[in-house]
């Protein structure tokens, strides 16, 4: 009787006789630190978890192991020199970052790139998005133990990276866009090559689909796991596939079309439950939609220059630099001092692979940025990890963590 009373008083009963077997065994929460170096944490992140058996009572993600001081580094580089830093934000889809950043700078200057450059940016950006989603989707499989699927995804990504390398000269660290255009044009035969590549990628994507989408093991692991509703997702600041999986029809490419996205026909896949499975499905479908966009962009791409002909912002053509004093002087000024971006402040946002990739740029008119702030799409989503993980078991952590696709580079900058 006294025990009941002490329970009702909220006091844990202290057993006077520890050998009394009828009593509940004393128990305590386990504290487990997952990471920073753990197979499931693709980047380096540490998850400080409190476990009740296998159930996650509390999970506090600890980021910063990959912090490289993007904002501060950018202040000491010219506007163009920031470009390699953006490669390393979301290093799985570098071109989308390149495009997002350069579009911000162009917005600040008040110029637009050439027509051909727009199509090239869209096509290359969507290829990048496919690469990102392929990585994410197949990595979910990898972490769940289906390693072959991961390598099929990587194989598809690999042939896309070959195309990216042909276009930009590098596979990952592309640094490809320039203020007013892009650095290199599509080499001869590249478009045909991409048109060969895309069906192959889709073939491998379908294999992923077949391996997972109806497989009950996979569905059981992901369905109704890490559920977040539309309202809650919005208030947490979700964007991109993670938000659309919750059923919110928000895609910047549709909502605020930029470049030539308004001329492309594609649809935005939506989920309804906002669980891990929906996030997986949305990404899978986005791969197919992006493939459509790539082909359309390459189809519609007009001939013409790939960078604007304004020597205040774009480097002069090499021929002029080699042979004329005007060219070499413009060249020197641009390299020595950087491109003079008018003083001002701008927030530019594009649809990155994980959601809204925003660049807040501040210029004081000098050749170097005054301040750059990145709204990394992954950051708010990682912030919601405690909410997503709460109450799930330790085994569920893996698919949830994978499905939000945390990229250390952009989250920790």
């Amino acid at each position, binding site marked *: 009787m006294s025990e009941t009373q002490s329970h009702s008083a909220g006091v844990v009963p202290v057993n006077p006789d520890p050998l009394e077997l009828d009593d509940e065994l004393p128990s305590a929460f386990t504290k487990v630190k997952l990471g920073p170096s753990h197979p499931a944490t693709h980047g380096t992140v540490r998850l400080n978890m409190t476990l009740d058996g296998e159930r996650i009572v509390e999970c506090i993600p600890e980021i910063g192991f990959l912090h490289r001081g993007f904002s501060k580094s950018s202040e000491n580089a010219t506007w163009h*020199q920031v470009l390699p830093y953006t490669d390393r934000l979301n290093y799985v889809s570098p071109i989308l970052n390149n495009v997002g950043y350069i579009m911000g700078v162009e917005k600040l200057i008040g110029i637009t790139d050439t027509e051909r450059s727009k199509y090239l940016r869209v096509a290359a950006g969507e290829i990048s998005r496919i690469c990102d989603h392929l990585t994410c989707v197949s990595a979910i499989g990898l972490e769940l133990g289906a390693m072959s699927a991961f390598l099929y995804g990587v194989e598809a990504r690999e042939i896309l990276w070959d195309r990216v390398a042909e276009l930009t000269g590098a596979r990952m660290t592309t640094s490809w866009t320039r203020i007013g255009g892009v650095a290199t044009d599509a080499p001869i035969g590249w478009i045909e090559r991409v048109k060969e590549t895309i069906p192959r990628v889709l073939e491998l994507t379908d294999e992923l689909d077949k391996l997972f989408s109806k497989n009950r093991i996979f569905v059981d692991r992901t369905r109704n796991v890490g559920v977040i509703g539309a309202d809650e997702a919005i208030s947490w600041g979700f964007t991109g596939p993670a938000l659309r999986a919750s059923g919110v029809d928000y895609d910047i490419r549709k909502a605020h079309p930029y470049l030539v996205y308004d001329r492309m026909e594609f649809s935005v896949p939506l989920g309804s439950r906002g669980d891990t499975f929906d996030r997986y499905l949305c990404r899978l479908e986005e791969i197919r939609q992006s493939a459509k966009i790539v082909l359309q962009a390459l189809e519609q791409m007009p001939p013409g220059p790939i960078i604007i002909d304004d020597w205040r912002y774009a480097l002069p053509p090499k021929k002029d630099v080699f042979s004329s004093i005007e060219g070499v002087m413009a060249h020197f000024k641009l390299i020595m001092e950087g491109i003079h971006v008018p003083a001002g402040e701008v927030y530019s946002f594009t649809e990155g692979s994980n959601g809204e990739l925003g660049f807040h740029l501040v210029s004081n008119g000098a050749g170097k940025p005054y301040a750059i702030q990145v709204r990394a799409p992954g950051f708010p989503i990682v912030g919601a990890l405690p909410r997503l993980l709460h109450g799930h078991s330790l085994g569920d952590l893996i698919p949830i963590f994978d499905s939000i696709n945390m990229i250390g580079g952009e989250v920790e900058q």
Partner: protein
Amino acid sequence: MDHGHAESPRAAQDEQELTLGEKLFLRETIKGMAIVARHFWKNLFGFRDNTTEVLDRKGTGVNLVTTINYPEEQKPYPPGYRGMHRLVPRVDGRPRCVACYMCATACPAQCIYIEAGEYDDQAIEKYPVRFEIDELRCIVCGFCVEACPKDAIRMDTGTHAPAVLSRPLAVFDKEALLGGAPVELSSDSMTYRAPLKTVAPMGSNEGGKKMGGH
């Protein structure tokens, strides 16, 4: 690829409820294993032609395993690939570089170190006494190539910086970097001028004709 039809955003999940057959595990399990098994048998019986690009390694019978067996097989880098640097020589073997420091300025990683010297040669005048690139610091962005006003540095070696056993070995000096085919540009005639004191009349230099138009 048919991209003519626009689809409305849809809630894909409503059709994703598993049927009873799928709920019984076995069918999808076997299907999944069949996909993997198909790759296995194709690769087991297929012939591997490592001269083809990965994209072409498909079909039955030939060109199968898509992985590059790296050191033995090497994928040729595409023409525009940013590989290891080289200092471009002139036809007489001297570097084209005039030590203008543009590459060092443009380099975001500050991996280029230059010391300038002076030729007695009236035409070129300035040259790099030391030109060193720390390939470990290099981030291979290609900005140096873009920044060079003399076409003196290129990344078209088609290879990448080799692995080294100690950090100082990754610093490539002028002698190591200088190589490849020499380059002669039409605008170079600017630097090959008549000897001092004899001022050539305008247009007498043949190179001048090449300069026209751009």
